[in-house]
């Protein structure tokens, strides 16, 4: 099992696989109709949000009920800057995740003092406060009329171009997340998830690490929000609604919270399901509920976990077979 030869092959296969996937995404616009490309764009932005959430959820074991709040902070920051000022798009875009991170320092400081259900409920409460502020402050945020017709630079005003733009940003963010997760910091987070007491005993300041995870997670959530604001050229208070939060949680569950790219798979499937189910029936909540149930009961690691298991099992049996020869 610690065979270096196997490990090297594995790494080559992984990198090869990643490059192949990236290539597919790159050439999609060549043969995909624009309407569907727009949908794929939505998928990768949702994937960014879900991966951001998963930093907290899967890696640090912190269940948040309010990711949509920070997502909306990102989206609204970008939207308000673009609406009220002449500041260039790029700067407005970066301001989104930065302000989400700043907000999350305050929110996170309060939340990480709690655990489990109380942590979750407090994150929900803060997200609802954000929703209420955005909803009620009509003079500034335009309330539930939302802000529409947000200006986007001319070269990004086509579906294909914004798709490439999103792809680049999402890939950069994912690469950053990968580095964080595989750094010593990331390893400590996982230790925290597995056994907080033991981690505390070896001198790790648990709360500080959890707050850091919260802030980093919120940074990427805000980035996704800003990216979506540019994509749809609008923002609405329901970007902060708890239904949106649940959507992100379901996406993580769907793909598998214990794998890095699980949420990516989850968001592709979720949006497809959403679209396909709604065109067949008005009872899409029922179908979605049943899908979530099925996943929880039968596919515990999400889709990715399930497939991983199968592949590992077959590899092990092959390995055993070879040794017997």
């Amino acid at each position: 099992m610690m065979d270096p030869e196997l490990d090297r092959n594995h790494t080559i296969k992984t990198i090869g696989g990643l490059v192949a996937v990236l290539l597919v995404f790159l050439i999609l616009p060549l043969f995909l109709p624009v309407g569907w490309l727009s949908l794929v764009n939505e998928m990768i932005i949702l994937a960014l949000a879900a991966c951001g959430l998963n930093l907290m959820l899967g890696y640090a074991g912190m269940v948040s009920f309010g990711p949509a709040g920070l997502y909306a902070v990102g989206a609204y920051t970008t939207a308000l800057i673009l609406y009220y000022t002449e500041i260039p798009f790029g700067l407005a875009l970066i301001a989104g995740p930065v302000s989400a991170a700043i907000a999350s320092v305050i929110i996170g400081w309060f939340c990480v003092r709690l655990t489990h259900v109380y942590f979750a409920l407090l994150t929900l409460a803060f997200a609802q406060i954000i929703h209420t502020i955005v909803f009620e402050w009509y003079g500034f945020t335009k309330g539930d009329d939302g802000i529409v017709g947000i200006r986007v630079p001319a070269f990004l005003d086509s579906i294909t171009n914004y798709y490439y733009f999103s792809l680049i940003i999402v890939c950069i963010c994912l690469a950053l997340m990968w580095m964080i997760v595989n750094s010593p910091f990331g390893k400590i987070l996982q230790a925290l998830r597995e056994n907080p007491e033991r981690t505390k005993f070896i001198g790790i300041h648990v709360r500080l690490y959890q707050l850091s995870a919260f802030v980093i997670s919120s940074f990427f959530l805000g980035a996704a929000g800003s990216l979506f604001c540019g994509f749809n050229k609008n923002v609405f208070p329901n970007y902060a609604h708890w239904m949106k939060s649940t959507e992100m949680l379901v996406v993580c569950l769907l793909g598998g919270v214990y794998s890095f790219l699980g949420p990516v798979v989850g968001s592709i499937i979720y949006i497809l399901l959403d679209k396909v189910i709604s065109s067949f029936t008005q009872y899409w909540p029922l179908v979605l509920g049943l899908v979530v149930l099925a996943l929880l009961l039968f596919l515990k690691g999400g889709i990715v976990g399930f497939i991983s298991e199968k592949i590992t099992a077959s590899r092990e049996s092959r390995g055993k077979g070879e040794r017997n020869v």
Partner: protein
Amino acid sequence: MTLQGLIIQLLSGISTGMVIFLIAVGLSLVFGTLQVLNLAHAAFYMLGAYLCFWISSILSQVTGAFWWALFLAPLGVAIFGGLVEVLLLRRIYDREHLDQYLLTFALILIIGDLCKLAWGVDFNMVPTPWPFNGPVIWGKIIFPRYNLFLILCGPVVFVGLWALIRYTRLGKIIRAMTYNREMANALGTNVPLIYTVVFMLGCWLAGLGGALVSPMSSVMPGMDMVILIECFIIVVIGGLGSLPGAFLGSLIFGLVNAFGILVAPRLAIAFAFILMIIVLIVRPWGLMGKPE
């Protein structure tokens, strides 16, 4: 505001409080004993309201139709809840909290659409039962009879539950389990059975809340979403798992709401949230819960 006005607003606040207590008490009980935050609790409440509407319209020619519905609807919800517990909930007790939340969330979606499939998407009304229709008029004070009835129901349910927990065998077991689950298991109690019973009790209470509240306004799709967050707020303020806490939390919520809208109509919506945040920051186990 005149004195009569203030009295009426006070009564309104108490009424709102008792209504939300009836709806949310089951949530607190289930969390205290099973350590599961049943997000679908409000959906069971809605199911209770729909069952009450359905039964009372089937029996509309029978005298006392509503009272029959009030008796049967919570039983129906309890049975449904029992099935849910045995078939679904049981499998995830020892899993991560996230899985529990997602399961109960899936139940919200499923129960909501099942109600739509069964009873359509219309708004429905349950006739207020005799002798509680119409207002009580006392000089300048006018207040609905039915709301007074609900104000009485609140303490009755509270005392009933309290007696159950204090004096019955089941109650002793519930208390033991809330205190220390492993010990209770070691002492030979049939934990899975107790879990089912308590969950069914929680659903029965939710269904009772739904049936009791149904004549006050309309029975319609989405009525669970509207009060879901409010349920969370009061059980957090009162203390998850605490019965007197749920009662106190509901009263506070009702009064804050009734007087909040007098003072600052546009901000009233946020008051309850802010209260919840303050409680979670300062005293997370609530006013009457026990510290973890």
